[in-house]
């Protein structure tokens, strides 16, 4: 026996259990793995302003969505079901009937854009103050973006700059309801963008690829027409009597 072993060297290690070991490790990683990338609704909070600036906002330019402690909706003073909110928000954004209660849409055409750009260009040239110059420069760039949108999409009607959908909640409103409302408002904008994109380019807005320059231009133009305007308003005490 001894002699034979010496001749053959150490016997081969049995690799039969290799699979078992690998299985064990595999199961460990299967369990600990988290594949989920985080998804959610992205929002920008407004910065805190040092001094209270009261800006006069036209009633028709604000779409007020109140959610009370019992998760009930009050939209523009009317009780509403969550299922109707999307249509309501879309109506606010488009104002198809030119209603006086909804924001007045301002027509944007290439001629107006060119005129404004020329105006601002002369302002920039004549401005003496450095800050004023920058402001004019910014305004001019904004009009250039609009001109770009017009060349891509044709004349459109723009939402006034101060039109917002304002979402206010009570302190006992459930977070679930809050997210649902946010979701509906987001869906309204997405649907409008999709419709526009389908009409002009026969593609879905969500299929556009931001990494391609051509698509990026379309995305920017569509965002010009239907901007995302949900206001993360200052907390308001809903228990106080309504104004």
């Amino acid at each position, binding site marked *: 026996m001894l002699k034979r072993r010496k001749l053959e060297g150490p016997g081969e290690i049995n*690799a039969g259990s*290799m*699979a078992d070991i*690998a*299985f064990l*490790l*595999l199961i460990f*990683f*299967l369990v*600990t*793995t*988290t*594949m989920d*990338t*985080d*998804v*959610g*609704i*992205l*929002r*920008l*909070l*407004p*910065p*805190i302003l040092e001094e209270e600036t009261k800006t006069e906002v036209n009633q028709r330019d604000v779409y007020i969505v109140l959610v009370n402690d019992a998760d009930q909706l009050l939209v523009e003073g009317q009780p509403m079901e969550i299922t109707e909110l999307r249509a309501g928000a879309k109506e606010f954004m488009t104002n198809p009937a030119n209603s006086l209660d909804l924001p007045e849409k301002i027509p944007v055409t290439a001629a107006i854009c060119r005129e404004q750009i020329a105006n601002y260009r002369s302002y920039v040239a004549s401005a003496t103050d450095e800050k004023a110059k920058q402001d004019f420069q910014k305004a001019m760039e904004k009009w250039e973006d609009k001109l770009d949108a017009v060349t891509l999409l044709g004349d459109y009607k723009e939402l006034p700059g101060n039109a917002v959908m304002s979402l206010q*909640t*009570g*302190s*006992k*409103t*459930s*977070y*679930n309801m*809050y*997210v*649902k409302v*946010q*979701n509906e408002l*987001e*869906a309204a904008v*997405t649907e409008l963008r999709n419709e526009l994109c389908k009409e002009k380019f026969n593609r879905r807005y969500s299929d556009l690829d931001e990494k391609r320059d051509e698509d990026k231009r379309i995305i920017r133009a569509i965002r010009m027409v239907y901007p995302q305007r949900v206001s*993360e308003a200052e*907390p308001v005490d809903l228990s106080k009597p309504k104004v």
Partner: protein
Amino acid sequence: MSRFKDDGKKGTPAISTASLPDIIFMLLFFFMVTTVMREVDLKVKISLPEASETQKLEDKALVDYLYIGPPTSKELGTEPLLQLNDQFARLDEIGPWVKANNERRQEAEVPKITRSLKVDKDTHMKIVTDVKQELRKASALKINYSTSRGR
């Protein structure tokens, strides 16, 4: 003919399992590479609300998480609490937390940081609103309401 008959008598040979370890190893490596270990121990119970209009958070390195929900251990009651990193936190600890996280990163990346709010769906808005106010005070304005992908 007789040769074929002989084969039939033996039955089908057993499938070789010699390549099984290789297959398992392949899977193993896949999971080893894709795995991301959970960084924090959750001390609050969170079941996320559902939403359909969600966006993906692309760069995980630029996301900080705030957890809000009822604590997992019963002794602490059922009121929702805020968790930052590995421990419960008070509202006034959000400011320093934001600052610490900003300093950890390159200056140019700071405006791109998203704070993702992982909030239990049965939480009342009060604590969420308070947390949002604290984030505003700390000028952490880019936030994400984390949801599960519904429908």
